[in-house]
């Protein structure tokens, strides 16, 4: 594995080149350009606001700015997770010629897909920052948690992405199954709602490894507090395991790619 990581490092320029290509092509093709990067987050935030408004009506608690800010802070990373996993599914099968004809470490494709989505994420996150400033959310030392949480999130996506890209190379229907999970995943993840709304039962929702990351982001940015440490550790370990097992599995299957694609 050490040797494989070293080879990946040797090809780092290619990783950035493919990422650059993916970004460039996406922005060239759409008339909307950069608006594309914030379209999905905006839609998710808006549906979140609608859901929270309904909740506020039923519970007779007025909708607070902090609630909307919290929905927005969790929606943007969720949009990243959804689109990066979606793009990794096609990352190998969409580059058939390169998989079949030229040698280089093929994990570059799912990784570049995640990095290209990360670029979109930062565009959307910048827009979000401006929004948060207007909402007067404020700054605190806990913001130092944000890069740590984002790192865990990217690690998670890279791991799942490598597994899914290889799986969809061998089984063409994997991407449809993944799509179903991505569509309904939002209901099992605290994006629109908060875990504490469920009382004692809420803890079970944290078993979803994405939940502690999103909730942690909301905690650090909106509530100015640390994420729940043991659940953060759970997500970290889960993401590391996903990344490592994803990488090992990918490398194990890689020699068969050219024949099976």
């Amino acid at each position: 594995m050490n040797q494989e990581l070293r080879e990946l490092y040797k090809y780092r320029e290619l990783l950035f080149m493919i990422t650059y290509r993916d970004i460039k092509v996406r922005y060239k093709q759409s008339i909307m350009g950069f608006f594309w990067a914030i379209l999905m987050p905006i839609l998710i935030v808006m549906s979140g606001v609608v859901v929270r408004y309904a909740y506020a009506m039923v519970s007779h608690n007025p909708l607070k700015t902090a609630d909307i800010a919290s929905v927005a802070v969790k929606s943007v990373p969720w949009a990243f997770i959804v689109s990066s996993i979606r793009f990794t599914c096609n990352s190998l099968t969409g580059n058939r010629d390169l998989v079949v004809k030229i040698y280089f470490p093929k994990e570059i494709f799912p990784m570049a897909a995640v990095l290209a989505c990360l670029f979109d994420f930062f565009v959307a996150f910048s827009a979000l920052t401006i929004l948060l400033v207007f909402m007067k959310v404020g700054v605190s030392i806990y913001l130092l948690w944000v890069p740590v949480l984002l790192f865990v999130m990217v690690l998670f996506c890279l791991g799942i992405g490598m597994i899914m890209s290889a799986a969809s190379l061998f089984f063409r229907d994997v991407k449809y199954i993944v799509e179903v999970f991505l569509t309904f995943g939002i209901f099992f993840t605290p994006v629109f709602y908060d875990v504490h709304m469920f009382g004692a039962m809420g803890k079970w929702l944290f078993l979803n490894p994405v939940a502690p990351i999103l909730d942690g982001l909301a905690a650090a940015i909106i509530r100015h507090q640390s994420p729940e440490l043991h659940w953060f550790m759970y997500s970290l370990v889960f993401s590391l395991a996903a990344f490592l097992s994803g990488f090992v599995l990918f490398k194990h299957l890689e020699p068969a790619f050219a024949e099976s694609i």
Partner: protein
Amino acid sequence: MSDVALRMEQIYKKFRKGEIYNSLRDLIPALTGKMFKGDDLNTKDKREFWALQDINFEVKQGESLGIIGHNGAGKSTALKILSRIMRPTKGRMIVNGRLSALIEVTAGFHPDLTGMENIFLHGTILGMNKREIQSKLEQIIAFSGIEEFIETPVKRYSSGMYARLGFSVAAHVDPEVLIVDEVLSVGDFVFQQKCMDRIRAVIKSGTTVLFVSHNLKAVTEICQRAMLLDHGKILALGETDAVARKYLELGSKPSATLESKAAYISKVRVRDRAGEQATFESGATAWVDVEVTAREKVDKLAVVIWFTDEKDYIIFHTSTERLGYAPFSLQPGGTYKCTFELSLNIAHGTFHLVTEIYRYDIQKSYDRHDPATTVFIGSTTAVGGAVNCFPRLIESETAAPSTQSCEV
């Protein structure tokens, strides 16, 4: 460091024929079927075949090896194993140094990016770093000959421009081992010549080259040694000329069985004064002996001979009838012999001699050997094309610009 650039030791590669499970929808019922009914999972398709069997060869540093063989002989599989895209089922392989493959030279292109962007993208995919590409950028663009369109998205390129740009990038990688697979089919004649020159220059600079092509002429020109693959096995390995001849013999097996023919060509021989020969100097005289044997009574026959070049283009043909001989008839068991005298005013290259027994009035072919034999024409005169007009330069003069020419 050893002087071996490439080595394959007992390489085997097995492929499955037909379909494999490529969706979970098919796989899961098959798996449950296996669990409950004890079905064999592999019953869907068990057939396998060996794409490569017991491949052993070695290429020394700076050497050039040609790989020839019919479609499906295993050439591409061998290259894919060498370039590490596929893993062999069994066997060991050594590659010393940076390897680059001129296989499908446009694989790295993205249609929406401009020519310039694609140079960087494709160059990086082929293993160059940014600084390297930057330093060779001028050369690459100049070689491709599409300077004016370099900022145009490549999806608007013609297929020839596309391929030229791809080859230009690939040709500037400067690898230690270069694999060339059928890239010469790209572009027009002039560009093909440019490619060949580039490959020759690469060989001259000491790069090890593996050259795969159906174009025997190109292989014989470029490679010192060649390897003939057939059905995944090495049939011949050695001097290019000898291997090329063996390859042609593979293709010249008579199509129909002899017994079914009323008359057949029983012997074809190309000779010079000394005897049977396959290599001739351009302009030399050759004699072609043809013998026809009849199994039944046949009438009004003629013997036709012609030469084709590497691309099956007929460059010359004649027949006994054209040369003024009356058609001949044969009784069962009878034979007919004729000899053509030819002045081989042909340019350097490989040419196939095809012979046929033909009856002109009813346009019936009794037997054809395609090719009956192959001749290699060597030439001391530097000419290209199919014929040799034996050119001599008798005047050469440079004129100074006349004083009236206006300066702009």
